[in-house]
């Protein structure tokens, strides 16, 4: 098998395994895995920017929440049906990513992190400030009647699982395509040496902007889908914590690998799930994992695997 065939076999195999798991998982883990798949899409969106371009954003919750509110508010206040609402979330995320990209890409390095952090903080505060519409921290529930997409009731666990799997499959295949395409290769070149890429005649700024938009829009779509599938939108999803989570998942799973974000999300989701049964201070685990990762495995799980065993991992 060629390297390309091997990597496609691995990722299609993962999707097939997830499809089969639907039939054997107990109810609780069935629901959890659906959540993990949607959140993994968020992480994959984050990974486009952090893993492939090497731009560390501390404000991706802004995009996730923009998608979620873009979807939720038009359902709640304008009475749109689920399909158009999902597209509204996507469009809102696209617009937000383009705006933030144009502004934030004027900076780089640490300034880029702080600018994205500040934009996300402003977005979170705005969600609280316009509490009349967003209901602030308390959030609002999206009624079951509004969660019917193309005849499928998304509040039904089986439908929900398949919708999540479909979304996850789309993100996985698109990311894989992206990595193989010329565009993805230029992104990696920018990560490795920005000056040299510019000298070779590539428009670095345009590629970075396109990456921010792709990353932000994916995150927004994941946010919109999360709101629709689990029937809730709230300001918590805009808070700093939700900007830190994708960073944590991607770092843990392996930045710059296609499968890494899923591994990281799955691992961290269950770690927090287990520890929140023991203590209310479950973010302690997140902190310890972050510190240990930066110290001992900056490449993450899939990254270490690639370094040691499977050099072909995309």
């Amino acid at each position: 098998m060629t390297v390309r065939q091997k990597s496609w076999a691995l990722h299609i195999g993962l999707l097939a395994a997830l499809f089969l798991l639907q039939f054997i998982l107990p109810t609780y883990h069935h629901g959890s895995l659906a959540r993990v798949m949607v959140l993994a899409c968020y992480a994959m969106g984050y990974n486009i920017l952090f893993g492939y371009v090497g731009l560390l954003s501390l404000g991706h919750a802004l995009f996730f929440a923009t998608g979620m509110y873009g979807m939720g508010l038009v359902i709640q206040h304008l009475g749109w049906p689920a399909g158009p609402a999902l597209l509204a979330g996507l469009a809102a995320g696209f617009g937000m990513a383009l705006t933030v990209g144009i502004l934030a890409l004027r900076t780089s390095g640490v300034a880029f992190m702080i600018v994205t952090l500040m934009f996300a903080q402003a977005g979170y505060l705005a969600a609280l400030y316009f509490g009349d519409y967003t209901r602030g921290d308390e959030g609002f529930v999206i009624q079951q009647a509004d969660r019917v997409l193309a005849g499928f009731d998304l509040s039904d666990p089986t439908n929900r699982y398949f919708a999540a799997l479909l979304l996850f499959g789309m993100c996985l295949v698109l990311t894989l395509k992206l990595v193989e395409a010329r565009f993805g290769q230029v992104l990696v070149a920018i990560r490795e040496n920005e000056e040299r890429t510019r000298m070779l005649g590539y428009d670095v700024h345009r590629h970075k902007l396109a990456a921010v938009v792709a990353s932000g829009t994916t995150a927004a779509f994941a946010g919109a889908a999360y709101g629709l599938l689990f029937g809730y939108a709230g300001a918590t999803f805009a808070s700093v914590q939700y900007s830190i989570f994708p960073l944590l998942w991607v770092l843990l799973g392996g930045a710059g690998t296609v499968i890494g974000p899923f591994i990281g999300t799955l691992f961290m989701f269950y770690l927090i799930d287990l520890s929140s049964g023991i203590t209310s201070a479950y973010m302690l685990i997140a902190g310890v994992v972050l510190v240990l990762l930066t110290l001992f495995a900056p490449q993450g799980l899939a990254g270490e695997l690639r370094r040691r065993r499977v050099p072909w991992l995309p």
Partner: protein
Amino acid sequence: MELGPYLILGFLEGLVTAAVLSLMAVGLSLVFGVMRVVNVAHGEFFMIGAVLAWQIASMIGGHPALGFLAALIFAPLLVAVLAMAADQLVLKRIAYDPERTIVATIGLLYIIQQTVLMTYGPDARPVEAPFNERLSIPFVEWADGGLALYWPWGLGTTSYKLAVIGAAIILLAAIWALMTRTRFGLLMRATQLDRETAQAFAIPVNRVYALVFGLGAGLAALGGVLIVPIQQAHYLMGHDPLLLSFIVVIIGGLGSLPGTVVAALLIGVSDGIISVFFTPTLAKIIATLGVAFVLIFRPQGLFGKRAL
């Protein structure tokens, strides 16, 4: 009450914020200037300062001034030791790489915050001020036959708040003297200027880094101890001051001490005055967007010379 007394009240409250903020921001700025490290856990050092102050004050009985004095001395020292340990155990090992230190300090933030939540609990607890006389402030009005003084209801401050402002001024002067008049200050400035050359001249750069990180954290903790009689100690209290001190350090220009103090005054006082008229949420939205735009369009800050 008319507009004038409101403004004075906002200004005084703003001065107290500015005093604490300047201590914290100078700590953040020192750490960034010398070590080029963006310490996201800085707010948590402020928070443990306050929590330790409660712990120490409640252990020592007797007159409240006694416990407070002990807290003022021991809390910052303990925090400094903790920070130095974090520096040696974590930051030194990742070679102060800018992006990895941010991730590691985010980790430290959660470790510290959640450990406090587990041990100290989610309650907000007060520490009694060593002295707390109410001082009313007069204001002028037109009475028959000219200007007359009167005491508007609610316009006033406490002796403790004035003492906080005084303490901040003394501490800032001490920091300035430390930086410019002592051998340790000289070593710090040399390391800040050029780390490798400093190392080549046998300056123990590693020890300077650890001490600077401890000093920065200690200053944040001092701010925490000073604020705790006014605002209760709580495990999430580090969040807002962290954001504000980032704003101050960025507006003031990174690594510039006078710029930091001026920006702290500007931000603290305008925060005080704005929150008299607007909701705090709107004030915070304006402030965060302001910082983002300063970084985008004037990355060296309003007073600094060097970009981030």
